[in-house]
């Protein structure tokens, strides 16, 4: 069930350049059903910024009723979010995430770009818990933007790429996948659309899931703001309810 709840801010810290990790606590966490779901956050009580901000759930702990989000403070809303203490108004969990049950094969590759990395963390944890081998390819702008390398390393091998070559392999995540000859039975990807497109092409032969972003209004499927073009008779699906995670091949790129 979707809840709207004032969640307690347990901690908030900077983990890379402009990247914040916030830990929230509350019964809403009980409702999370799969990795890759997101929450819709009202960053303050004012009318400006007006709308909620969609942020993926990076990891969660049902026992402690906690979840961790990782976000980049760039615009008005996320900068305001970074200044919050005490409580925060959260709506969620929303959308349909990464399927981790009944995965065929042994090895999963998780590919994240920038602020697309966070939801892959819980996904990787759950795959690992289900006995899968997990490989991570994480792309960032530069050395300063890299986060969670160690956390992912605890789960499986990690390949870091940076656009400017200041850390790890220079280039894109797909470059690293080719260079290191990564083989897997399934892929999970989250990042900018061109990256998702490239990943789908590169891993043409295996099944996979990608997580999309779109500007949102309601976050629950009512306003039709967040559609994306899909193959099939509907032509459009809603990122907030049908997604954000879609199966490989569902989306029409470009």
């Amino acid at each position, binding site marked *: 069930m979707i809840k709207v709840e004032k969640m307690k801010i347990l901690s908030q810290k900077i983990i890379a350049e402009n990247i914040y990790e916030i830990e929230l606590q509350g019964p809403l966490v009980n409702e999370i059903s799969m990795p890759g779901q997101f929450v819709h956050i009202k960053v303050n009580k004012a009318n400006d910024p007006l709308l909620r901000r969609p942020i993926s759930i990076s990891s969660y702990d049902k026992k402690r009723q906690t979840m961790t989000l990782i976000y980049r403070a760039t615009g008005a809303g996320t900068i305001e979010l970074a200044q919050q203490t005490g409580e925060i108004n959260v709506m969620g969990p929303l959308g349909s995430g990464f399927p981790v049950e009944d995965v065929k094969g042994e090895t999963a590759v998780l590919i994240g770009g920038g602020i697309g990395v966070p939801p892959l963390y819980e996904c990787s944890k759950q795959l690992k818990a289900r006995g899968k081998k997990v490989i991570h390819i994480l792309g960032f702008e530069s050395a300063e933007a890299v986060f969670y390398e160690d956390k992912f390393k605890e789960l499986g091998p990690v390949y870091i790429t940076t656009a400017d070559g200041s850390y790890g392999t220079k280039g894109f995540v797909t470059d690293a996948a080719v260079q290191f000859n990564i083989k897997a039975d399934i892929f999970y990807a989250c990042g900018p659309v061109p990256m998702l497109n490239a990943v789908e092409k590169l891993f043409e032969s295996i099944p996979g899931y990608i997580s999309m972003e779109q500007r949102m209004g309601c976050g629950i499927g009512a306003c*039709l*703001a967040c559609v994306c073009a899909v193959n099939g008779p509907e032509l459009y699906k809603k990122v907030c309810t049908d997604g954000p995670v879609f199966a490989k091949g569902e989306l029409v790129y470009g």
Partner: protein
Amino acid sequence: MDKLRISLPGLELKNPIMPASGCFGFGREYCQFYDLSLLGSIMVKATTLEQRLGNPVPRVAETSSGMLNAIGLQNPGLEKVMNTELPWLAGYDLPVIANVAGSMVEDYVEVAKNISRAGNVHALELNISCPNVKEGGIAFGTDPEVARELTAKVKAVSEVPVYVKLSPNVADIKTMALAVEKGGADGLTMINTLVGMRLDHRTGKPVIANKTGGLSGPAIKPVALRMVYEVSQVTDLPIIAMGGISSAWDVIDFISAGASAAAVGTANFVNPFVCKEIIDELPAILDELEVEHIHDLKGRSWKVGETADYRA
């Protein structure tokens, strides 16, 4: 709850609060949060003759205390609305106001004729003001003569009272109101969105794929309030007001300005419980203001020294 019960052409409402068209779909999503039967009414998403896919994305952008949208009337088309959405809504004790849109007069007439015959549709809302439809939407909403004719043609075929939704993008909204009144409108709904725009700082290009979008939310409330104030003084048609409403006090403002009922749009996105919360809070506010019925406040902004004591 008698304090809130109102009666308008075609609409016997438990209370004067309803979600605004396009901001609540057909109710399916918000029924997760509360029982839709609590609502006074529901203004469902615009329905056109054929299915519409709407505009390319991005379709929304945020502005200071407001948002822009250019959804482009995405909807499954008359047939699907009649066969699937309206029957589903019939499961609730909830009179529906069907928002009717189109590109040509014939579209409006055809949709109105059919949808007004659905059992739970108690009124139509003629959307002559959607700023995001290119083929003719603008002209319908800003030319009094065209609006009058369209209203008359829809009235001629509709089984239920017809409310016309006015655009704020005009020099004189009173003229528009009087024109559709002449055309036979049973009521007015106002306002639709103001045409606005946001640019991406870096590229300088419009954020919204449609380039311009409709501005809604608290930012436009002062404009909406002024328009209701103006129009309610020149016509006796009941007004369902909207534009930035997000609290019970906002509703009081619009009723004071001269509206008979209030619709909530953008605020649903911020707080999915907002309509319910407003309905829950209104009685205590009426007590505080020492009035017995919400319509005792109707038009008090402009009524000179008068204590309004009638009911709609």
